[in-house]
């Protein structure tokens, strides 16, 4: 089925612009889809012959081919190695994504997660045979409760947004248990998009709270929106402008005074871990992105893990399953009937065990003393960037930031260069861009998070590059230069509009050959 010349012909349209016949540029290699390679009858695994024992498929045997290509092991290894080389990664360089926390991913975490006692155990084995795995979950739960100052934790959410769903379900269950009906959830305009989406998914109307000129929740606007129909307020703290909500205790007291709950988006917990306990601020529910604060790798988009800590008021609504420790060791409460008030089950099985092992490994490597230093260094690094770039770029707000520094695009005004162009120029200089155009409340936002695992040297070099690009943009007449970026990547700017207009979401043999004929 393979035809290399056909696969490579997808580059033909661009051939006159290409310096080589193949489209390869030295070590930067073009790589066709796996479906454009291989031969029928070839395979990358050796499996024994199938014994002749008859079939009990009840007449439902699959007929006809599936259409999967046949490749050997070395072909497959080479294919995915080549694909990997087209990716930027934290292992390759600084990854200053605000709100996403791209920090060092220790390989010890990976080694521990692959210990057979964690990776090769089944969630439905007898409880007596999984005591080590349950001990790990219980130990991690203890760390999370202690670090946040909260009495209970739900371990099963599979990601941060899944944790939000869990927390909001617990809040709704608590409200319904009181026989109340509340309809509104207050969400700041600057919130992560997952917050309003979660509140809406839980059946609530989302009521936005404006930000004040200091980048925080406008407390008077917040106060004006309070009422007996408000179920909760969802606030990220430190917020998405990289700022601590200085009136957070008052906000918590206000929402409690009308019988509502305080959901805290814990995406930025790494800024305060070991220095502030959310429980002391009046939080009722907060998810913790283990992949952000506790360094489990992002994996190109996942998997994540989002345990949710709960206050006394919500503790009894914790969903199944949860681990309990008795005199005979650990056991699991996993049936809904056994958990009296729990709101149900959010996910099959016990949660993201593989992520739990990585997170606990990281916590133990840092300890209580090191985690406190994590927050201090993350905040120091971000403020250093803010201070060093305040003259070349335009900080969105005055005063110190937490773990991320936010700029607006005022410094690009009149240059013809947009935030996007600026970001693409960073790629040519060897950097992954910062978070762009978020939070929405700041025009052309550039949100930079260095994290605590970057050295001063790495940050100084990064600052020099950003300052240089800002100077270049402000020279004038540089818009075309910026708009042509990136130039040295496997692909130049990609047409996202065309992709959305006529979606091609999978390979199809007929379309590919039609393309080649065009």
């Amino acid at each position: 089925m393979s035809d290399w010349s056909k696969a490579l012909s997808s580059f033909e349209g661009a051939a006159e612009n290409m310096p080589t016949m193949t489209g390869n540029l030295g070590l930067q290699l073009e790589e066709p889809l796996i479906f454009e390679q291989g031969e029928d009858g070839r395979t990358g695994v050796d499996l024994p012959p199938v014994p002749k024992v008859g079939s009990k498929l009840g007449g439902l045997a699959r007929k006809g081919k599936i259409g999967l290509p046949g490749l050997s092991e070395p072909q497959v290894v080479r294919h995915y190695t080549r694909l990997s080389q087209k990716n930027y990664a934290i292992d390759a360089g600084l990854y200053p994504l605000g709100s996403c926390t791209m920090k060092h991913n220790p390989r010890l975490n990976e080694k521990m997660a692959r210990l057979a006692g964690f990776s090769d155990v089944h969630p439905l084995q007898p409880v007596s045979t999984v005591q080590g795995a349950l001990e790990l979950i219980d130990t991690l739960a203890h760390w999370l409760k202690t670090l946040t100052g909260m009495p209970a934790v739900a371990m099963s959410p599979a990601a941060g947004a899944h944790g939000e769903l869990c927390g909001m379900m617990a809040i709704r269950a608590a409200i319904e248990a009181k026989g109340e009906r509340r309809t509104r959830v207050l969400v700041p305009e600057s919130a992560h998009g997952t917050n309003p989406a979660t509140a809406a998914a839980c059946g609530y109307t989302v009521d936005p709270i404006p930000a004040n000129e200091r980048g925080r929740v406008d407390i008077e606007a917040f106060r004006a929106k309070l009422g007996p129909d408000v179920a909760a307020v969802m606030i990220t703290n430190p917020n998405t402008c990289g700022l601590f909500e200085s009136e957070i205790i008052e906000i918590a007291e206000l929402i409690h005074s009308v019988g509502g709950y305080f959901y805290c988006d814990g995406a930025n917990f790494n800024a305060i871990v070991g220095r502030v306990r959310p429980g002391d601020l009046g939080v009722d529910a907060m998810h913790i992105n283990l992949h952000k604060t506790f360094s489990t790798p992002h994996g190109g988009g996942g998997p994540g893990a989002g345990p949710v800590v709960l206050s006394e008021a919500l503790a009894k609504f914790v969903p199944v399953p949860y681990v309990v420790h008795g005199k005979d060791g650990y056991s699991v409460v996993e049936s809904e009937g056994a958990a009296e008030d729990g709101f149900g089950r959010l996910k099959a099985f016990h949660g993201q065990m593989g992520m739990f092992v990585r997170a606990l490994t990281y916590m133990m490597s840092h300890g209580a003393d090191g985690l406190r230093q994590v927050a201090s260094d993350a905040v120091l690094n971000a403020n250093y960037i803010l201070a060093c770039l305040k003259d070349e770029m335009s900080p969105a707000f005055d005063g110190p930031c937490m773990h991320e520094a936010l700029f607006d695009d005022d410094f690009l005004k009149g240059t013809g260069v947009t935030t996007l162009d600026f970001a693409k120029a960073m790629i040519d200089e060897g950097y992954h861009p910062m978070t762009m155009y978020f939070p929405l409340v700041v025009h052309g936002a550039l949100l930079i998070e260095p994290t605590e695992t970057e050295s001063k040297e790495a940050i100084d070099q990064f600052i020099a590059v950003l300052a240089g690009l800002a100077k270049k943009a402000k020279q004038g007449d540089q818009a075309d230069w910026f708009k042509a970026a990136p130039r040295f990547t496997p692909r130049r700017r990609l047409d996202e509009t065309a992709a959305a207009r006529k979606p091609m979401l999978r390979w199809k043999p007929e379309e590919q050959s039609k393309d080649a004929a065009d």
Partner: protein
Amino acid sequence: MRYLPLTEADRRAMLAAIGVPSVDSLFRDVPESAWLKKPIDGLPDHMGELEVDRALSAMAAKSMTAGSVPFFVGGGAYKHHVPSSVDHLIQRGEFMTSYTPYQPEITQGTLQYLFEFQTQVALITGMDVANASMYDGSTAAAEAVVMANRVTRRNKAVLSGNLHPMYRAVIETHAKLLDFEAVTGRIEPKGASGGADDLIGKIDETTSCVVVQNPDFFGNLTDFTKLAEACQAKGALLIVAVTEIVSLGAVKSPGEMGADIVVAEGQSIGNALNFGGPYVGLFATKEKYVRQMPGRLAGQTVDAAGRRGWVLTLSTREQHIRREKATSNICTNSGLCALAFTIHMSLLGEDGFTRLAELNHAAAVTLAGKLAGVKGVEVLTDSFFNEFTVRLSKPAAEVVEALAAKNILAGIPVSRLIPGHDDLLVIAVTEVNTQADMDALAKGLSEVLS
């Protein structure tokens, strides 16, 4: 603190550049009443690599691992052999330590494998399109129901009684707190075709979808073609869940039966048991529902020089654009687990995938035949893939404990998940089970049941 590069001299220099006397002054927006003046009590201080390794290895050693004993536990998570190159490749830092591919020019590797993943999932499920993965099979099932409610503008889901009880619980939790109704059909451990008739009787003009599983929780295989027709006649969607994706190498695909949405657990291909997660949810549907689909999608396009490339696409369905109007709140996928799936599937290819499925089925047929000859065991399932249900002459939970004491992990007592079915045991067998494993189970059962 080997992960923290700043020296005391660095910190002093940086504070001077900022113009503040101490790090504490950078925390001045935090109400002082909430400041912790010293490291949190009740947790140990930092440890070296060797100490952490020792502590966690000691913990890990306290569990009985699947690879160390005859192992027959399934129920939505399966022990298979994963080729060594899979884990090696996913641990390449360029895959493992990268982020969601928002900057397509420097994430073509991730985007291309997601496109390949979507293609593989569409092909094996027999559907038009698939997304770039969900958290796991159970949450994908709940998202599918929410999508069906949105597509049909109806709010009653009909769930098969033979759907995995935990999948059922996840959907029911969503129903309770997201304002839709979920009704469940009869639980029928022996044979599911009658179950399909029962479900057909429950479909009416308020039904948004019917959710079935194939093979079902008890291992039964069913042709859902008639059910699909009944759904279509009433304007409801048919959602088929597959918890053992290897089955699709041998069994007619849900797409061929007329499914509207297929959700599946992809753990079996490329991923370890991991005590329940992380796994990889598969989600596939018909072309006409693409814009209603939750989750991430990679799509083909061209770059400024006219060359083929990939981007994340149709993001206007997503929470970062539509906020409270989004198709779901999901903003992540199981990227690395999807990569493991894709690499393993690429290694298998057409021949390997088909052969792997045949080996699994043959092993199950062999074991079922062997156990049928054991006194006190009745094999209930007539047609199955690699998992089947037996009725025992003693309570299954006790039998499983007794066999665990003999270092045999015999299967799942149904009573652990569905109260009241004390004598039923669900047994899974895959290509990793040897003849000796099967002999040990048969011998163990005959000893415990005698």
